[in-house]
């Protein structure tokens, strides 16, 4: 099954990090991504720019309304994702737990939509 691992953490901590701390985190992410690729479950992954770059778009009565900032102001922000293809939820959870940001932030595990899904 395909899952997206959505990474949420407090982006305000990044500017406060020392160069060493930042390098260490990037190193951890490098190791994790390498492991994912070697095990053959990795589909793709991206890190997002911080939420101050976000624009939220809504179309109401035919008008496009754009607002500054992310969809929701939260303590932890959506900062990136991994898309993986694994056997089941337990495997997805095991990978999610290895994401470096899972230690301070959180990772949401969501299956990718399939035609089996029932809408309601």
């Amino acid at each position, binding site marked *: 099954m395909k899952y997206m691992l959505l990474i949420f953490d407090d982006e305000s901590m990044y500017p406060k990090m020392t160069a060493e701390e930042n390098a260490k985190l990037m190193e951890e992410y490098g190791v994790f991504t390498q492991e994912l690729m070697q095990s053959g479950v990795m589909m793709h992954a991206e890190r997002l720019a911080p939420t101050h770059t976000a624009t939220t778009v809504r179309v109401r009565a035919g008008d496009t309304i754009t607002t500054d900032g992310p969809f929701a102001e939260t303590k932890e922000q959506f900062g990136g994702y991994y898309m993986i293809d694994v056997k089941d*939820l*337990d495997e997805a959870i095991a990978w999610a737990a290895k994401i470096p940001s899972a230690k301070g932030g959180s990772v949401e*595990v969501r*299956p990718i939509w399939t035609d089996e*899904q*029932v809408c309601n």
Partner: protein
Amino acid sequence: MAAKSTHCADGSDVREDNAREAVACAFRQESGAILATLIRVVGDFDLADEAMQDAFASALRHWPAEGVPDNVRAWITTVAKRKAIDRVRRHQVRRRREIVGQSLREAERVESAMNDELIDNAVGDDPLRLIFTCCHPSLAFEAQVALTLRTLCGLTTPEIARAFVLQESTLAQRITRAKRKIREAGIPYRIPPDRLLPERVEAVLMVIYLVFNEGYAASIGDAMIRRELCAEAIRLGRVLVEFMPDEPEAMGLLALMLLQDSRRDARVGEDEALILLEDQNRSLWDREQISEAFELLQTAQRRRRFGQYQVQAAIAAEHARAIRAEDTDWHRIVQHYDVLVSLMPNPVVKLNRAVAVAMACGPEEGLALVESLASSGELVSYHYLHATKADLLRRLDRRAEAREAYRRAISCCENEAERTFLKYRLDLT
């Protein structure tokens, strides 16, 4: 689990003219195991459940004329497999124009799985697979409980709703959602691998103990169903111990439930009023259950991996060991509580420890502990805290304060039987 084909729980023979009763009996005893196997085979909770219901309906039609089969479980499982194939085929015909390939593959998969000789009678690890899936941590705790009772215990949705005093529709929705999440989120149907076991076993034990307590604490709801909950929790405990003989906490939990349940006939009087442990007629305790629990607890403790259930069972065992209430070794019980507080440092456990200390060392020492707990504010609306305080004050002959504490306890208490008891105590004070 031994298949009890034509014997009901009380061991009486079920004759052919009692075929209806045999069906009901088979449903109670076998439906959990049968469903567990069917889910593995057909790979879907709802399809398995529907096929099993079809098979039991078929038993109601056939057994009165043809007699009750020797192996009830095999009969139901075989018929259910056929019914599942029928259902998949019908579904396949309906969907043919839409997603031909997919449904064909599904039917082939189910059929080939069903032709597998191995599944004919053997249940094997299936009940364990089912319980771990129902208690998967990605399901909400309430959903775990409801799904476990619905699938493994063969309780109907209205019965579970009555036991938990919930709207039937609320409960039905909870179960539907849980089954859907299992399917759509890809929760595996299996016994978790070793590295996941400690955490998963804990979740399973918690669900089983909650089911037991819902039955035992009898705070609200139907008495019959509550008895059923205790019996089912004990049955699930046995399944767990049977399949996981190396798990001492599973044995600890089963021992604990057996010990508590051994007092069932002694703890409630004729007028439904609760009788305190010290006042119970100990000859009514179920000695057979007690000795089974002792054996389990000893086996568990030899594994030298202690946990909260073993310690709680050890406390219950101290009570069971005492021929008369005054023979209770309260110092030993305090020692067990010391261990329990270190394992689960929550205020309720500390309160129970205070009660044991009062029994071992006198009411002053107990009261001091209760008061320090009360001042922490955590248990301020917990009736047991006020009732304990009242009881200790009464024993110290501080009657006015005791009455005040009893009144406080009554105002916090939602259980009718316990309220009656507290009022009775207040009148005596």
